[in-house]
């Protein structure tokens, strides 16, 4: 009797819609561009994963960076320094909603972005705009002092 009861129950439950933790699948997609890692996060239903945590770890699980997606489900960050392995980007969009994307180490070669180059050029221009007069004269004095020393050291050779 019990066995028949169990079989009937199992048959009925088989038709009950199951709402598991993976019902709202989340997807995170990441790519490298101009020294930055860009991510796009969404639920399987194409709904954007807003205000969701992005956790970046190496293969050992060490957290290298953390952030939160914006209103478009996007999040961008600079490539972390001194990377020794592939990067694993984990999206956490609430309880039971988790997605991952792996970026191979080879893709993470840091190429300076246009913004980096502009910023460093600006910094260089500022530095170059105001050279110290004292340092200029010091530099010229050092050059001529060196010449005098060389001339003094090689004076015997010069007389021959």
């Amino acid at each position: 009797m019990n066995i028949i009861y169990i079989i009937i129950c199992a048959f009925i439950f088989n038709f009950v819609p199951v709402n598991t933790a993976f019902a709202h699948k989340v997807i995170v997609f990441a790519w490298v561009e101009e020294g930055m890692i860009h991510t796009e996060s969404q639920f399987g239903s194409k709904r954007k994963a807003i205000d969701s945590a992005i956790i970046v770890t190496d293969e050992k699980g060490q957290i290298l960076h953390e952030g939160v997606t914006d209103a478009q489900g996007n999040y961008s960050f600079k490539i972390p320094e001194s990377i020794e392995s592939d990067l694993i980007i984990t999206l956490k969009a609430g309880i039971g909603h988790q997605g991952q994307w792996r970026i191979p180490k080879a893709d993470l070669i840091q190429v300076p972005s246009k913004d980096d180059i502009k910023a460093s050029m600006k910094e260089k221009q500022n530095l170059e705009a105001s050279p110290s007069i004292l340092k200029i004269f010091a530099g010229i004095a050092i050059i001529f002092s060196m010449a005098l020393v060389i001339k003094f050291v090689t004076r015997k050779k010069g007389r021959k």
Partner: protein
Amino acid sequence: MHISEGVLSGSVLAAGAVIAIAGTGIGLKKIEYDRIVHVAILAAAFFVASLIHVNIGPGSAHLILNGIVGLLLGFAAFPAILTALLLQSVFFQYGGLTVLGANVVVMAVPAVMVHYFFLPLVGKSPRLTFAAGFLAGLVSIFFSACLLGTALWLTDENFFETIIAIFMANIPIMIIEGIVTGFCIAFLLKVYPEIIPVKKK
């Protein structure tokens, strides 16, 4: 034109350092006793030239003067440029100490080249003297930009866009440097011919 620290790969930096040391060794050996002061004058001029900025459109550029240094000094341009770049690096953070060898190669190799290409023209006639100076200034910057691009390309092929940008930015400098060098050589030939090696012969 100065390459900053942390841009080039270790192998490119090492190759630059080796070439710079070799060039400086040859240069020091070739400096004649009577020319030591000339080397100092031109090293000082090179040291100061990078600090004078000329506004071109939205940006600004500075003279390099490796053309005139090379034309007048030949291989002695190596120690002159090395000294000037070392002082620029220490005093003004131009370039850097680890990248010093590469920067010396980028600026001194074209300088030596123009010495052998264009010095024979100096003193033949006023026009040829100016032309030799102009071409020395222009060609030295051109080859420096080529060497800089090569160093970046050997480090990372993704630098291609940066190389093109650097090359384009240097086109006005090539022309300005050519004109400045042309006038300087013509002027020096009149007022201080001893500094020009061709006149000594």
